[in-house]
């Protein structure tokens, strides 16, 4: 095979993935591949330098995202990716740190870290792949499972209230909050691009099909059917890209078989943790970043 043919056979995003990890473990119809692709395309669009790209994930299907990305990648413990990423970002403020993880990881076991990282406005991006259930463990209900949905642990229908994630993120202090579905692949990519460029704590919820864990018990069908459901019964607003200014995150509740609101809910400016840390008297004198890094170099 000559070089050109070889080149042609390469997938356009192959350089961004660890091909030795493929095929991936995700089920047919899963939305995670779309999210992964949107993220790498966004890295390109946002022109994030290759060496500064860091992805941290937790546990679950989404947690595996880190391992597939050909960049510095850390697959941490259940619920802790945001806390781990906090240390990483503060340890080296040059890094562009993104957490890709699931709804259970980020909002059940990891909920506390989420609200506090948002409150502190740590400069990181959180992409939550919300499939309404714990997929990896076989489809149990979680903090985002819509009321009345069936899962293996809510066989009579979920009798709990789910989180409204954009509302939670915005009220916790995130400077950029958006929600998309995997049907909005390009909007998702552009939104991630905005988030990557934005200083501060950004949050993007991606509603993603899980045909095995969520689609089957709720008789939605395959992944494509679940996506169709977003389009048809969960009516996407045509103007969803321009609701930036007026969409109230408190209206973003997700209810079974009702319209799902997507778009950018919040895009504001607020000093980051580091901005405020650098204002501290001793640090002003010390010029933290250089000091820490130079010291490391000297000691090497």
């Amino acid at each position, binding site marked *: 095979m000559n070089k050109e043919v070889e080149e042609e056979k390469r997938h356009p995003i192959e350089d961004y993935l*660890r091909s*030795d*990890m493929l095929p991936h473990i995700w089920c047919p119809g899963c939305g995670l591949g779309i999210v992964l692709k949107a993220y790498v395309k966004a890295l390109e669009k946002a022109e994030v330098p*290759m*060496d*500064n790209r*860091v992805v*941290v994930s937790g546990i679950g299907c989404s947690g*595996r995202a*880190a*391992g597939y990305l*050909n*960049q*510095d*990648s*850390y*697959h*941490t*413990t259940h*619920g*802790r*990716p945001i*806390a*781990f*990423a*906090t*240390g*990483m*970002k*503060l*340890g*080296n403020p*040059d*890094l562009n740190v993104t957490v890709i993880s699931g709804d259970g990881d980020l909002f059940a076991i990891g909920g*506390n*870290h989420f*609200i*506090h990282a948002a409150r502190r406005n740590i400069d990181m991006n959180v992409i939550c792949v919300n499939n309404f259930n714990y997929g990896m463990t076989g489809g149990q209900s979680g903090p985002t499972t819509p009321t009345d949905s069936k899962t293996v642990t809510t066989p009579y229908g979920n009798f709990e209230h789910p989180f409204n994630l954009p509302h939670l993120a915005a009220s916790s202090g995130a400077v950029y909050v958006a929600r998309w579905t995997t049907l909005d692949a390009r909007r998702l990519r552009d939104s991630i691009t905005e988030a990557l460029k934005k200083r501060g704590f950004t949050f993007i919820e991606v509603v993603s099909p899980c045909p095995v864990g969520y689609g089957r018990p709720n008789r939605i069908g395959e992944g494509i059917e679940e996506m169709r459901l977003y389009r048809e019964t969960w009516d996407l607003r045509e103007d969803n890209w321009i609701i930036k200014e007026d969409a109230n995150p408190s209206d973003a509740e997700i209810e079974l078989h009702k319209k799902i609101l997507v778009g950018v809910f919040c895009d504001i400016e607020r000093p980051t*943790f580091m901005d405020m*840390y650098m204002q*501290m*008297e*001793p*640090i002003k*004198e*010390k*010029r*933290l970043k*250089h*000091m*820490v890094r130079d*010291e*490391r170099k000297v*000691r*090497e």
Partner: protein
Amino acid sequence: MLRPRVLTGTHFMHGDFAAAEGGLAAGCNFFAGYPITPATEVAERMASRLPEVGGIYIQMEDELGSMAAILGASCAGIKSMTSTSGPGFSLMMENIGLGAMMEVPTVVVNIQRGGPSTGLPTLVGQQDMMQARWGSHGDYPIIAYTPASPQECFDLAIEAFNAAEKFRTPVLLMADEIVGHMTEKVIIPEEEEIQVVERKHPKGKPIDYIPYQADEDLIPPMAIAGEGYKVRMTGLTHDEKGRPAINAEAQGPLLKRLLDKVNTHASEIVKYEEMDTEDADVIVISYGITSRCARRAVELARKEGIKAGMFRLITAWPFPEDEVRKLAEGAKGVIVPEINYGQMVTEAERVVCGRAPVKGVTYVPGTLPDPTATLHAIKEVAK
């Protein structure tokens, strides 16, 4: 005037503060913690001192997050540390396991208080010694130091950082409430006199980097985020390349190497102090604050003509197995006083393995250990 990183000089210093100063002297630039008695003063000292030296102090939302954050900072190339006590130590176990599995250097200070549960927040205990060894799930290596004075809080914090960096693993500084809250003379040497170890960095090109390919010493060089090495780390069982490998074929060699990494270097890591052991019939093994009362008990026993000797653990883990075994050979007995209902004594029993009778002395958590009970035990054994 900002204070320098190393506060060279003679101080009258709090044990918790000394642990923080030791960390700084070892090059710590990141501290994440959560307030908890009696370890809060370590965090307070760091909150005051780290900004002075250009480092980062962050008070996290809990100990789960604190432990995760210090691992993250270490992976970004910054030496990191946290401090806690009983209940917080329990929460940190989760990510101590992650640190052991991903092989991330970091230091955890535990100023032990009485437990279980909320127990005795303001009073002493030595009840976390086995948790220090086995507290996180799975088999993993651990290194734990047990300071017996504020001076040792300082010295051993440096040792802890050096061991963490050298062996790429979380290292514990297992002090106790009395040592932590004690104020004593602490001598801080000149910066140049302090030996500071740095982790091994990969020598080859980033493209050739294999994250878990160990050198002959079983320790893989560690690349940090942001340097182009495309680091791949996971808490899952993994192969040399850091790829998840969920099978026994990967688990076997990985765990063997992780455990051997510390075990085969045990003689280099192990630290202890001996007093009057040369001719001793009765060996008192102790650590932390209890060692200070054991020392007195041994002195009193000697005055009464009993050949007692003290063996003080400076590392609890790895346990000085060979040394203890040798001392037990031909001894009338081994006494292990501790502020718990029998923890390190079980390790002593395992190691002594019938060479001599081993007897624990329980000091009820919350009490200042008094030499009397240990002296009594020495006399019983010496009969």
